[in-house]
């Protein structure tokens, strides 16, 4: 990670925290790329690196107020990723359920880029129906807040609230099981 990347990433994050949704999306994509490369080197044979990426993104989201905007962003980012990796390893140790054959299947599956069901998909199942339909509309179906409001016959504020609570509930499920 060189200095320029760190600076531009911090700039994106600052813009995001000031309410720039596009900057936030770009920041999260960059964060995902960094964490993915980081997790692939550390989680082999353990938890799926993409699960670590997704749990880290959720944790970044619900804990983004813990970043101080004059601090570098990458140490903060990797500290969260490490926390999530340790958490996933601990969870897996408690309920060992990955067989070698499964890992082999997974490696094969990744090679052909099949859509897999990540842990977060299972977490989505535990939301209330209202929260689930809002989160799904905006993530999987790619709708905007106002499109989701129209298609679900809700007002925009209610959509925002359901989205916020749904994401917080998913993050909580990973953090406090």
């Amino acid at each position, binding site marked *: 990670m060189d200095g320029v990347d760190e600076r531009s990433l911090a700039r994106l994050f600052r813009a995001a925290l000031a309410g720039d949704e596009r900057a936030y999306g770009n920041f999260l994509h960059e964060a995902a790329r960094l964490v993915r490369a980081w997790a692939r080197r550390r989680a082999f044979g353990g938890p799926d690196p993409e699960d670590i990426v997704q749990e880290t*993104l959720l944790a970044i989201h619900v804990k983004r*107020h*813990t970043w101080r905007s004059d601090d570098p962003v990458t140490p903060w980012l990797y500290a969260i990723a490490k926390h999530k990796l340790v958490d996933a390893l601990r969870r897996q140790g408690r309920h060992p359920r990955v067989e070698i054959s499964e890992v082999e299947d997974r490696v094969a599956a990744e090679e052909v880029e099949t859509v897999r069901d990540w842990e*977060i998909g299972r977490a989505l199942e535990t939301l209330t129906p209202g929260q689930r339909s809002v989160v799904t509309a905006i993530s999987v179906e790619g709708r905007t807040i106002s499109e989701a409001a129209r298609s679900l016959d809700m007002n925009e504020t209610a959509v925002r609230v359901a989205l916020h609570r749904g*994401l917080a509930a998913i993050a909580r499920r990973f*953090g406090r099981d």
Partner: protein
Amino acid sequence: METHELIKALAADSRRTGVAMNTVWWGAVFVAIVVATTVFFALLGPRPDIASAAQTIRFLFKFVVTIALAASAFGLLRLLSRPETDPRGVLPYLAVAPALVLAGVAIELIVAPAETWSTRLVGTNSLQCLTFIPLIGIGPLALLLLALRHGAPSHPTLAGAIAGLAAGGIAATFYASHCTDDSPLFVVTWYTIAVGVLALLGALTGRHVARW
């Protein structure tokens, strides 16, 4: 859900940011002090001779130690509530209060005759000290743990223990104005145990409360 789909959902939720940690910490400390004040005046109140006691160096020194403990533990707690803080780099700050009290003990051992050491250490209020410091500190501890929960500590057990030390520092500051045992020998013994109880309680609950 694929990662790029998750990012869409997170970006759409960008408007609602959590309350700033600064606000949360100072809010928690303010309410913690209000709670400690209320419990202290409801249960104990300051000693009747506080005006004359305030002329003595031993009495005042208790506050130097307890306030140093509260301030250093609180500063550390704020650092530990951020995920990237490496505890090894910041834990030495915690040595301030112990160093002060040990210096006080050393001076006490020099100026006080040896035959009075044990009476000074045992004092008259040890049981009261062990009861009321945890009792005054439990509310502040709960508030600091709630604030910690809003943060993202990478070491929640340790951070919980430090929250216990900060709460203990607050509680001991109040208790010190009630207690008539002013010798550093008493403080180093009984205050340490009482604050240790809160630190242990903080460590045990911190690991659950501050998970994320």
